């Protein structure tokens, strides 16, 4: 139980450090909330009144403690633009991003791991090289550019091929404005999700295939395969029961490491496809210089990464008895 508690403690300390980092970011940046809230022609008296109201005149240490206290009670401040509570906007956007991210992660693993495994099996062959070059290319393409290409394909591309409009995929948004009946709504969201999920899953799978390939090749180089062959397993069984089994924990660890990448990709994907999640929220806030929202979303993303890492730490010993011993 002790290691579990220690990891939980580390996660909480990390969260605190991330909060401190974001606080430091805001307070080293030029300008303050009062300057951003008021129109440029506001006079000095109004400015100093607003500063006092916002508590910006208090000593930095006091502001820091109050900000930490607010975060601890779930108060992330209010948007400078809309005046809504940041926690409210995030509570709305989070499930939307979560759905997109989870669907993409599942597809990423389902495509990436078998692909990497197949490559490792035939490591060095022409097919292996071809897939390496292909996955590196997809992995190297800017996500926003791939998304734009998809938009072009389903609009102009589909129209010029004569695809009937009922069959075409929607290019933007999460649902059609007219669809309100409960029975049609889920299908409508699914239709809108195809393209964003596809882009995220393809780029994710390209990365995971690269990781999985090298982890399995590494494992095949060790003694496990020879041991399997020596105890009389067929080459196929030695591969699946020994080589792949040994590589599995590192593949899982690397999938967890790819979560921040999926998050980053989803920011662009949500931006291009107008998907109303946290990425879209962040981009809008960045465009409007809406500090409280930027900080709230940043903290939320950091929390998601820290929780993922914590879960991976807890999961790995179950997959790999060797790790449980340490």
């Amino acid at each position, binding site marked *: 139980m002790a290691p579990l508690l220690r990891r939980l403690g580390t996660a909480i300390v990390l*969260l605190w*450090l991330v909060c401190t980092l974001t606080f430091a970011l805001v307070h080293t940046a030029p300008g303050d909330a009062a300057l951003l809230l008021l129109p440029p022609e506001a006079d000095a008296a109004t400015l100093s009144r607003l500063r006092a109201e916002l508590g910006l005149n208090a000593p930095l240490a006091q502001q820091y403690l109050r900000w930490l206290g607010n975060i601890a009670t779930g108060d992330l401040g209010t948007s400078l633009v809309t005046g809504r509570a940041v926690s409210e906007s995030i509570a709305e956007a989070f499930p939307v991003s979560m759905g997109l991210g989870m669907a993409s992660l599942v597809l990423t693993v389902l495509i990436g791991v078998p692909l990497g495994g197949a490559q490792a099996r035939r490591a060095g062959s022409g097919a292996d090289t071809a897939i390496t*070059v292909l996955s590196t290319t997809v992995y190297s393409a800017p996500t926003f550019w791939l998304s*734009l290409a998809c938009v*072009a394909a389903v609009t102009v591309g589909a129209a010029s091929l004569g695809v009937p409009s009922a069959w075409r995929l929607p290019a933007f948004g999460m649902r059609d404005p007219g669809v309100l009946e409960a029975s049609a709504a889920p299908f409508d969201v699914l239709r809108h999700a195809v393209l964003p999920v596809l882009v995220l899953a393809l780029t994710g799978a390209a990365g995971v295939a690269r990781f999985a390939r090298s982890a399995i090749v590494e494992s095949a180089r060790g003694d496990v395969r020879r041991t399997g062959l020596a105890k009389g397993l067929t080459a196929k069984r030695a591969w699946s029961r020994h080589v792949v089994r040994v590589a599995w924990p590192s593949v899982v660890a690397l999938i967890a490491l790819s979560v*921040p*990448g999926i998050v980053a990709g989803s920011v662009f994907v949500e931006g291009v496809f107008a998907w109303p999640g946290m990425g879209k929220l962040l981009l809008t806030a*960045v465009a409007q210089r809406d500090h409280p929202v930027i900080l709230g979303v940043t903290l939320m993303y*950091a929390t998601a990464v820290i929780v993922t890492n914590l879960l991976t730490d807890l999961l790995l010993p179950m997959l790999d008895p060797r790790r449980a011993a340490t």
Partner: protein
Amino acid sequence: MTQLAPTRVMVAATILTLLVIACAVGPALLTRDPTAIGDVLSQRFSAPLSADRSSAWHLLGTDAFGRDVFGRVLLAGRLSLTVGIAGAVLSGAVGAVLGALAGWRRGWLDTGILAAADTLQSVPRLVLLLACAALWAPGVPTIITVLGLTGWMGVARLVRAEVLGLVSRDFVGAAQVLGASSRRTLVRHVLPNAIAPALVATTLGVGNAILLESGLSFLGLGVQPPAPSWGNMIAGGREYLVTAPWIALAPGLAVVLTVTSATLIGDWLQERVAARAPG
């Protein structure tokens, strides 16, 4: 030990070299200024491999302002490559220094550097970049600094691990017995043996930095128009995706070619270094 690189790495290296030379020399050879706006109506939206109505021929067509896309891709490449390389080198240098200090000094410095690395790695790099770009004035110096400050963690961990492995080796003890100061031992004896993985990670970081720069510029937070960068060119072509897809397609392909080549070379270097490491 001279082992020829696999074909894909040779091809990647050739493509990358040609791209760098084209971007470095190309803009000086152009007859038309790719940032100047001339007779917009007669020159805009000319398709690739065709002449516009003022009978000037364009390899990759023209954009909404009648500017030659090929010339702009080359000029933008200068900025995008510079930002990418500078960002990666800066993060590599910061990482090497911090990693070496952490592994050599140990103690509170080590704890502090590792905690800083853990903290920065808890926030997805793009999100951190976006937050910084929104808080500070956008522009080339800001991007390079922020790329450097958000990308050093991986290199620092690699160098720290290498230094920790080298501390107890005989040649380090020998240097100290001979009277070398702690600093001289670290800089002259330990670091040269610990730097190979850091160099590889920095090479791999170039592609990543170019991608991030293009993303920031795409969102209007990086290189500011009228200076062209691959990212802001894609953003500029976004409106004309339907009528003039080449405007967004060409700079995107330039990014893909550059980053793919850099990544293939970096991956191969990483394999080589990993294969040479003892144990």
